[in-house]
């Protein structure tokens, strides 16, 4: 490839090729666009082919590197008119498997290559174990790629999707592959519409419809997967938007030394006592609503020893953190506010949650309370004191029944 200007006139990919990173001649890498969806049948491949036609009409050299129609007539029809690189046949355990012909794609060197099913695992004996590795080679050769993937194939979401759907997806790709993509486009349909398409035979052949309906394609599965897909793409958009955000000088000065986070990240300050679990649960619920990560931090005094009750509480906190998917950290420091501030900056925390403070004694009463100290040290970070609902219920009970203990 000469890496010169391609077709500056039309199409997203062509337009992107004019970007500053793309102006370095032969060293330019191709641009990756990924259509992501909640499940098979939402129309990712269809969209990929539409994109191919649009680019072709704009005058670009477009080829199909690999297409999986799953026997869908509409998809096969749409592929007509786009040149296709023949698959290569690979023998494996007396079976002949058809795979993308990577050397042929590289030799043909189109401007844009359509490569379906990014998460596919290749048959042994070809260049790479996974198709996304083939795609990396194609991109490295300066060829733009449009590809497709289902959300459950993303490594970080695999466990979550498995828990939601009860079905383990074996073929996964590192999240970094999608994170590196120049464009991620969600192909979305409602679960009801997808089920209609499935029943109409537009997703799988007739003989596979019943099995699909009884297993993966259940309305609750699809709803959960749709939510995961929407969140994932929103996260991608947020991550890509951040570097170009305009920051005013005041915001800039406030941001100096404060955590730099792409999404929300919550930090709950805990201590090993039974009431801390309530704080962790509340923090977890907030983190879920914000689709944020949750860290737990216990700042212990240097040399602090725990009695049996505290040890048990600490162990219970660790167990709770593990089951909720939160990360628990321990730091030794005399100055709690300073330790928390350092930690928050390192982690990119955007919210700090803490429970009711211990009532100070003696000269400690003259010191600024911890929430205020945190706010002073961490401008731009929300600090939230989690209420003790049970204490409030107690108060209400006492008001209702003055004789009650």
């Amino acid at each position, binding site marked *: 490839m000469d890496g010169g200007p391609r077709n500056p006139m039309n199409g997203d990919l062509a337009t992107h090729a004019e970007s500053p990173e793309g102006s370095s001649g032969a060293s330019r890498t191709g641009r990756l666009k990924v259509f992501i969806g909640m499940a098979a049948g939402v129309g990712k491949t269809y969209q990929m082919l539409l994109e191919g036609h649009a680019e072709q009409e704009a005058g670009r050299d477009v080829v199909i590197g690999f297409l999986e129609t799953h026997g869908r007539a509409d998809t096969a029809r749409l592929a007509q008119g786009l040149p296709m690189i023949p698959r290569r046949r690979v023998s494996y355990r007396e079976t002949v498997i058809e795979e993308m012909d990577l050397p042929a794609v590289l030799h043909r060197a189109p401007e844009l290559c359509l490569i379906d099913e990014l998460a596919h695992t290749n048959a042994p004996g070809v260049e790479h174990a996974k198709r996304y590795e083939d795609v990396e080679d194609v991109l490295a050769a300066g060829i733009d790629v449009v590809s497709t993937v289902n959300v459950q194939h993303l490594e970080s979401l695999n466990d979550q999707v498995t828990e939601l759907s009860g079905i383990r997806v074996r073929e996964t790709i590192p999240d970094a592959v999608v994170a590196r993509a120049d464009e991620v486009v969600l192909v979305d349909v409602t679960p009801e519409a997808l089920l209609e398409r499935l029943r109409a035979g537009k997703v799988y052949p007739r003989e596979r419809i019943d099995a699909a309906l009884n297993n993966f394609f259940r309305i609750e599965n699809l709803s959960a997967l749709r939510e995961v897909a929407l969140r994932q793409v929103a996260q991608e958009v947020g991550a890509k938007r951040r570097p170009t955000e305009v920051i005013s000088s005041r915001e800039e000065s406030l941001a100096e030394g404060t955590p730099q986070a792409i999404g929300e990240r919550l930090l709950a300050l805990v201590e090993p006592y*039974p009431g801390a679990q309530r704080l962790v649960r509340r923090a977890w619920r907030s983190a879920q609503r914000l689709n944020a990560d949750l860290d737990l931090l216990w700042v212990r005094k240097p040399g602090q020893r725990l009695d049996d*009750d505290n040890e048990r509480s600490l162990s219970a906190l660790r167990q709770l953190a593990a089951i909720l998917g939160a990360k628990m950290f321990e730091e030794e420091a005399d100055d709690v506010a300073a330790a928390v501030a350092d930690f928050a900056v390192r982690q990119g925390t955007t919210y700090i949650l803490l429970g009711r403070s211990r009532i100070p004694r003696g000269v400690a009463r003259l010191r600024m309370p911890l929430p205020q100290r945190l706010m002073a040290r961490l401008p731009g970070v929300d600090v939230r004191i989690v209420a003790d*609902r*049970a204490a409030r*219920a107690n108060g209400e009970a006492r008001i209702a029944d003055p004789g009650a203990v």
Partner: protein
Amino acid sequence: MTALAIILIALFGVLIGLAAGYWLPPHGRRSGRHAPSAVRRILLPFTGQAISRRSFEAAVRLAKAENAVIMPAFLATVPMNLPLDTALPAQCGRGMPLLEAIEQRTTAQGVPVDSRVSRGRSSRDALRKLIESEHFDRIIVSADEDPHSGLSYEDLRWMLERVPAEIMILRPAPEDTRRISLEAVGGHF
């Protein structure tokens, strides 16, 4: 009395005040950090979205009588195809509000509470792991074999045979339909 004497007496008074402020806890409030040290601990295991109100009330009565701590324990099940240390957000989405509701009701009745979570390949496995790692004196379960409790008659028999604690199994009763569910959680959770 000289001015110096007055100043000395005032300073002495201030010192006494500071010392008292340091050593005495603030008036009318307890620190609330530590549960009162209890002799006994009562385990109240559950797996689903509701627990029998009778079990809960029995646990509270006993805890009050014995100055005990109630340990509501959410038992989560890890599917066989997942590693045992997997986070379980979907199950926790059901279990945590119920744990919160139980804690709120228990604390509102003046009984200390110390919650636990445990996970295993089955409810029994999760309970076994909890028993191995925690000390408690009593377990209270309801004998109504229903999908909410998650503990079958087989599990109850296993507990009687294997668990080194007093086990109180409440016999089925008409009021077993009364339950504490996750909807009982007070306030915004």
